[in-house]
């Protein structure tokens, strides 16, 4: 287990380094004059040069690369071009607010989609199975901001059931906060329903066809016993992996959802950074989400290893 863990951890660190390097290439190697980007095409050249000197963007590329890698290790992503203050505290506060939203979306979507996937798998190729698969394909193909828009029009404006904006009044209690976050969370939950349900269905169908499931049925276990002791544990392995991957994507989709619902999370922070060409903020955002993704997949690896000993004992994987 230790060997499995350390191998996975090492791979995660290598991946993170590559990710940071890709981001560095985007912001530093692509043809780009930071001073010019910030000040616009009409600023005099001297002002642009002065700003580049101040920001240190015209130093040799290797020095900048080493500095940016050191910055990631020490969790110092530099100062915002806009406010001049360190990027990270501001970003982390926003990430915290987004995590609330993303968490609620996952809490809604995981149980429903796993249940739907299991149901569909046990009724394979019947009408209800086809309906769930088709619904999954349809829902997961619509961008979050479209789902959000339709929800706002139907549930928010026409029916008036839920507030249209996501930001709750200050010091609101938890039920009120959930009420405000419910619609944006739904917009995201709907998109992820398709992915998770389909993965659960595929995993379960495979296990249901296996020899050990047939043995379990033939030695006289009830369906409930077979499902609980033999099927679920193995069937949910691919589902756990897909949920982990979705956690990373959740933060990509959240940008558009936060815009629709006017929620002050990391999506709003990233958009305003994009408008003001605040590269350190954007860079930090991408890397923080990369870390979230990495931690999620690492967590998923651990859970699957715990669920299925064949994975953790096979050290060559």
């Amino acid at each position, binding site marked *: 287990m230790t060997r499995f863990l350390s191998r996975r951890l090492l*791979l995660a660190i*290598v*991946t*993170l380094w*590559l*990710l940071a390097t*890709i*981001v560095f290439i*985007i*912001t530093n190697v*692509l*043809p*780009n004059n930071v001073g010019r*980007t910030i000040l616009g095409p009409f600023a005099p050249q001297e002002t642009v040069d002065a700003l580049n000197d101040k920001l240190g963007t015209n130093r040799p590329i290797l020095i900048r690369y080493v500095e940016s890698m050191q910055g990631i290790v020490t969790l110092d992503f530099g100062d915002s071009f806009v406010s001049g203050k360190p990027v990270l505290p501001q970003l982390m506060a926003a990430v915290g607010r987004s995590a609330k939203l993303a968490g609620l979306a996952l809490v809604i979507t995981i149980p429903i989609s796993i249940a739907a996937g299991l149901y569909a798998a046990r009724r394979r190729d019947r009408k209800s199975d086809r309906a769930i698969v*088709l619904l999954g*394909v*349809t829902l*997961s*193909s*619509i*961008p*979050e*901001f*479209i789902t959000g*828009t*339709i929800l*706002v*029009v139907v549930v*928010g*404006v*026409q029916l008036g059931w839920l507030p*249209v*904006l996501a930001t709750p009044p200050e010091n609101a209690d938890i039920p009120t906060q959930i009420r405000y976050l419910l619609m944006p969370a739904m917009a995201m939950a709907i998109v992820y329903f398709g992915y998770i349900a389909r993965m659960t269905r595929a995993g379960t169908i495979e296990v249901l066809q296996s020899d050990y499931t047939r043995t379990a049925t033939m030695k006289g276990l009830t369906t409930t016993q077979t499902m609980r002791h033999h099927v679920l544990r193995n069937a949910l392995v691919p589902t756990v992996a897909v949920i982990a*991957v979705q956690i*990373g*994507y959740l*933060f*990509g*989709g959240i*940008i*558009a959802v936060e*815009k*629709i619902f006017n929620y002050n999370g990391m999506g709003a922070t*990233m*958009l305003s950074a*994009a*408008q003001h*060409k605040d*590269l350190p903020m*954007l*860079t930090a*955002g*991408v890397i923080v*989400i*990369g870390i979230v*993704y*990495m931690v999620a*997949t690492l967590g998923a690896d651990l859970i699957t290893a715990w669920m299925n000993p064949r994975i953790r004992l096979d050290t060559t994987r």
Partner: protein
Amino acid sequence: MAATPVTATTPTAAPGQSSERAQARRETLRLLLRRPAFIIGNVIVIWWVFCAVMGSRITPYDPLNYFTTGHLPPSAEHLMGTDRIGRDVLSRVMVGSRDVLIIAPLAALLGVTAGTLLGLVMGYYRGPVDDVLSRLVEAFLALPVILVSLLTLVVLGSSPIVVVCVVGILFTPIVARTVRSAVLSERQLDYVTAAKLRGETGRFILSREIFPNVLGPTVVEMTVRFGYAIFTVATLSFLGVGIQPPSPDWGLTVSQEYSNMISGIWWSTLFPALAIASTVIAVNLIADSLQSVNNE
């Protein structure tokens, strides 16, 4: 004996081979046409392509000019109402597919071409090349597509070419991974061993032997990527870094109009939103039918 010409042992296309292939293709098409999802998907996509091509020749009003001073609810005159500066929403929705239907297929094509090449090389040669590239692919997969596109478009400035390149490059590793796993299972088969024993070059085996056999998953991947490309380009336009005004693009229109929803003006946002939804659903229905026919 060594003088035996190599060409004699190289299999040239047997006379029956091409007709056999054509027959297989006809069979696939027949299976596809039996699926309602495939037909519905195609009808919707062809309708939007038709609108994009015909443009203002078939719209009831000029999509770029205004007729009243502001929002009007849907009526007999303006079936989908008018937008914030009084332009006919129906006309704008009809021509709104134009930009996304050019940018998204190009991005998908770029991603699939580069990804297939990469996947073929990774899967066939294995070894250190595969190890290094696999790590890179993993790193790319950890990058949130929307966020990285946002960053890159801020750095490079937004233009259709940049959007195509950014989305295409971000799709490349995903395609590469799919093609690689398809190649991995193909390369163990006898026909590859036979080709190797004949002394074929790696390039020949990849392009003439393995590639035709992984074409199925590649075509499916192309359709799936096309759907995601529409998804991504629409989202980027909504975020203000994709297609730029004054285009009647759907995602862009939603971003310009959505703040009016709170005051009850839903028509100028809902109809372009439904147009995007219909297109991505249609493409995914096609992709899904291709995938299941492929697996049969």
